[in-house]
């Protein structure tokens, strides 16, 4: 059995890498399909033909597309992520500190939202149709209905500027300071992310749990006379973990997306705000690198979720043979 699991894992990883490769081509293709010339976007109103030509040569925009793509890809493997059009510094210099900051923010949010959503979802399923379930259902519906920037704005108004003035309104990290140097300033962004993600995941968790709790094999276990607790832990939970894994992966994914909005709202110096900025100014190298990074994170989490699901669902394991 172990050999087949190993083979499965290897295969999945290989597929993940293939996916990433295709993704990189897609990213590059889409971003090069610009209607506006990036050189003009950078130089703006003052562009002279000479300045434009010089800039294009500088950034290698005059080479054929396939060459540009391979240059870019190999560059990344060598640690050369390109030069940002906007700041004229290297992408790694510009993005480096931000990656750490965003990662820290996401970590705290994930550490909060994953257990929270699993617990709320499971509890709601266990106590379905009772008070906890209906209340949590309603609350999570309302919270899920609001886009993150609305949640963030309301939280700021309540805790920072208008009703109470307890918390900072923006995150201020001095350049070079570690992301935990303004923990107070992280509270509202993390809270916003939690509120944005948890309701959704909790609901999906609940749905999965309900299906399990009302399924045949659980019924069988009950009929066999087992007490509810054993039913829950030995029969229900293991089968709910599979879909839960998928859902956690999507959770992390959703957080990564929410980061773009939340960082801008709270002026957090991470890759989300850098990406939003780069998209507005058509800073291609930055867009390409960040899109690739976020995609890589996704592929990784999905990979882990897939492998996790298989390891955990007995039937799927037998299929591997």
């Amino acid at each position, binding site marked *: 059995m172990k050999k087949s699991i190993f083979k499965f894992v290897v295969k999945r990883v290989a597929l993940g890498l293939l996916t990433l490769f295709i*993704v990189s081509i897609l990213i590059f293709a889409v*971003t090069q399909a610009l*209607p506006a010339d990036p050189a003009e976007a950078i130089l703006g109103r003052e562009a002279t033909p000479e300045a434009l030509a010089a800039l294009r040569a500088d950034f290698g925009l005059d080479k054929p597309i396939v060459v540009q793509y391979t240059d870019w890809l190999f560059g990344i493997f060598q640690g050369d992520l390109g030069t940002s059009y906007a700041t004229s510094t290297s992408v790694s210099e510009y993005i480096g500190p931000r990656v750490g900051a965003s990662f820290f923010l996401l970590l705290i949010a994930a550490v909060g939202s994953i257990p929270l959503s699993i617990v709320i979802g499971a509890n709601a399923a266990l106590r379905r149709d009772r008070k906890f379930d209906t209340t949590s259902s309603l609350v999570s519906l*309302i919270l899920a209905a609001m886009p993150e920037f609305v949640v963030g704005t309301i939280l700021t108004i309540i805790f920072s500027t208008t009703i109470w003035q307890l918390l900072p309104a923006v995150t201020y990290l001095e350049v070079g300071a570690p992301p935990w140097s303004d923990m107070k300033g992280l509270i509202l962004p993390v809270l916003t992310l939690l509120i944005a993600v948890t309701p959704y995941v909790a609901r999906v968790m609940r749905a999965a749990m309900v299906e399990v709790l009302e399924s045949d094999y659980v019924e069988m276990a009950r009929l066999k006379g087992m007490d509810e607790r054993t039913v829950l832990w030995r029969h229900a939970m293991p089968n709910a973990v599979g879909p839960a894994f998928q859902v956690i992966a999507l959770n992390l994914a959703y957080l990564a997306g929410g980061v773009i909005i939340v960082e*801008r709202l709270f002026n957090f110096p991470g890759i989300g705000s850098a990406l939003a900025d780069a998209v507005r100014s058509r800073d291609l190298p930055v867009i390409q690198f960040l899109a690739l990074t*976020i995609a890589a994170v996704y*592929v990784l989490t999905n990979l882990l979720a897939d492998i996790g699901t298989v390891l955990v669902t007995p039937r799927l394991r037998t299929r591997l043979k």
Partner: protein
Amino acid sequence: MNTESFVDERPPSLVRQAFKLRRTQIGAVLALLLVSVALIGPFLAPFGSTEYVELPNTLNVPGTVFGTDYFGQDVLSRFLFGGRTILILAVLATSIGITLGTSLGLTAAYLRGRADETIMRALDVVLSFPQVLLSLVVISMFGPSNVLIILTVGLSTTPRIARIIRGAAISVVERDFISAAEALGESRRRVVFAEVLPNVTSSLLVEMNLRLTYSVGLIASLAFLGFTPEPNAANWGLMIQENRVALTEQPWGVILPTVALALMTIGTGLIGDGFSRVSAGIDRGGKGE
């Protein structure tokens, strides 16, 4: 074991049973209310959607209920005009996602093996981007347009739904009654849509409701980031962003559309809840051992 009995369980009774529940009824009322506001609203609006009434962000303007918005337009009128576009956009986008996603997810789960692998891997590529990111990049490259938004939201929703459906279907597909149906010679399509589908409906319904609201939120978020197809279009999502700056002085411009969105979510969510309870019941009841 009489396998014929559950082959006869058909969707229509699902609907009827769902509507017997109070929660589905409440949900339907809410959803209907909002849809009516969206559709009939424009005829009830006291002012035009782009008509100038008074200085922007003024609360007590005679002739208006909620005052003026960021551009001097009547908040109430804009709200009444604002449901239509956004609902159409969101429904279209979500429908694309749900139809494609469910079909692909079910097919992958049922066919298993290499077909499953190929389908899911292809979808993985799309799944490698957060929806916001995908929409952002595409829209920033090609300019914001309603068609583009519907397409990006719809296509980026597809793999997400496919994944969830497949995840839920995989366990169903393993079950005995499916093999039984196959053994009876039922066509593959029938097995997939008549047998497997009803059993993943609860996951589907939860997804549907949340995806719908998410689409609206995404449109608003794109506006927040500075990308909107029609500036000043009367559109609940856009209204939230446009009036956000003046929130502390003129809260209604944000409150009204946000509450509308919340009610719509609750409404469709309750409907989804109702259906999911009932289909779970069928799931259990039809196969008593």
